[in-house]
């Protein structure tokens, strides 16, 4: 019973942003660091759109400490506030390895907001074409921004932007296909 409970808590942690924990753990693999350093390298590499709050680092590290995935490597008390230096444990390394080896759950986005909007427009006799075209223009605007950012950026910018671009492209293809099927869909919905 107990082990099943921890299993679910563990899964829940993964779903609710446990990946920050794994990421910080992964960063620790190259050597012991202070919480502040960890935050800085996280922000530098992964925090383009979401830099970490100190509180988040602090709470994540104390959780990792409690779970035995990191340990205190040294304490500095000179002058300012107490600064803990963390290092990764063997269990921590295993944990990172398991995380990296596990595929992410693909999200099929069934019943997306866009689909709902299109159907509602048709049900209420509004112009669904207009909704699709407006969305299409918005998607392309964003893709343009990302493309510009990519052209000016380094390799990691390019990889991050490309990931977003391929996803937007998939949405846009759906918008195009739905536009092409609109009269068929209208018939089906109104009968």
């Amino acid at each position, binding site marked *: 019973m107990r082990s099943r409970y921890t299993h679910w808590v563990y899964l829940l942690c993964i779903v609710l942003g446990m990946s920050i924990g794994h990421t910080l753990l992964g960063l620790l693999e190259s050597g012991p660091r202070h919480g502040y350093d960890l935050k800085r390298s996280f922000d530098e590499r992964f925090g383009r759109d979401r830099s970490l709050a100190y509180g988040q680092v602090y709470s994540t590290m104390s959780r990792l400490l409690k779970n035995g995935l990191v340990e205190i490597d040294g304490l500095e008390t000179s002058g300012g506030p107490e600064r803990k230096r963390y290092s990764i444990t063997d269990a921590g390394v295993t944990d990172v390895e398991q995380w990296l080896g596990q595929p992410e759950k693909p999200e099929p986005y069934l019943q997306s907001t866009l689909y709902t909007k299109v159907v509602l427009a048709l049900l209420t006799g509004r112009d669904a074409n207009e909704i699709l*075209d*407006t969305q*299409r*223009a*918005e*998607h*392309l605007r964003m*893709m*343009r921004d*990302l*493309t510009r950012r990519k*052209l000016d950026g380094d390799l990691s910018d390019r990889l991050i932007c490309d990931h977003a*671009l*391929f996803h*937007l*492209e998939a949405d*846009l*293809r759906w918008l*195009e296909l739905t536009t*092409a099927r609109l009269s068929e869909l209208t018939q089906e919905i109104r009968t």
Partner: protein
Amino acid sequence: MIDTLLSGHELHKTYGATPALAGAEFTVGAGEIVAIMGPSGSGKSTLLHCLAGIVRPDSGTIRYDGGDLTAMSDTQRSALRRSDFGFVFQFGQLVPELTCLENVALPLRLNAVKRKEAETKAREWMERLEVADLAGKRPGEISGGQGQRIAVARALVIRPRVVFADEPTGALDSLNGERVMKLLIEAARDTRAAVVLVTHESRIAAYSDREIVVRDGRSRDMARAT
């Protein structure tokens, strides 16, 4: 607002009983990159061919640099194409009997530039598109992605004021498509050439400044859609 360099107004074109264009509108300014998108068979290529003076529309007007393209004779239009326009298509555009260098130099040769000068310029553009090492090869001996970069070099060698590109990356994988687009866009920006880019791929259209969508021969300016 950019001054209009090339525009089409109320363009109609019918092939037999098939209406290919039914009142399409288009404008592009100097140095501007405009994407033409839309479903297959909607009239994208026909629109590009009309704008480039390759196909004569049944009705409507096309203005280029203050002049009326639709009022020109065939000879005048082909002279204009040779001097002012560059072309990149999806495939089969390089002359198989010529080397890559000769292919790139060809538009200059057609404009009566001397061989040596033409080949020097061709080499410069090939270097810029990172295909200088293919100079002596023939089109049959190079990959699709390399061929497209040769084609871009050939389109740009005359320093055209308008580059017409119809699915220039259609046969390429993502990485090569991207390389071709990056080089095309950078070169066009440097020379302030306008680009008319037909594509059905949104990631490619995202290199443009603006897009229009053609559906059933009619165009829709997406900048005004919202």
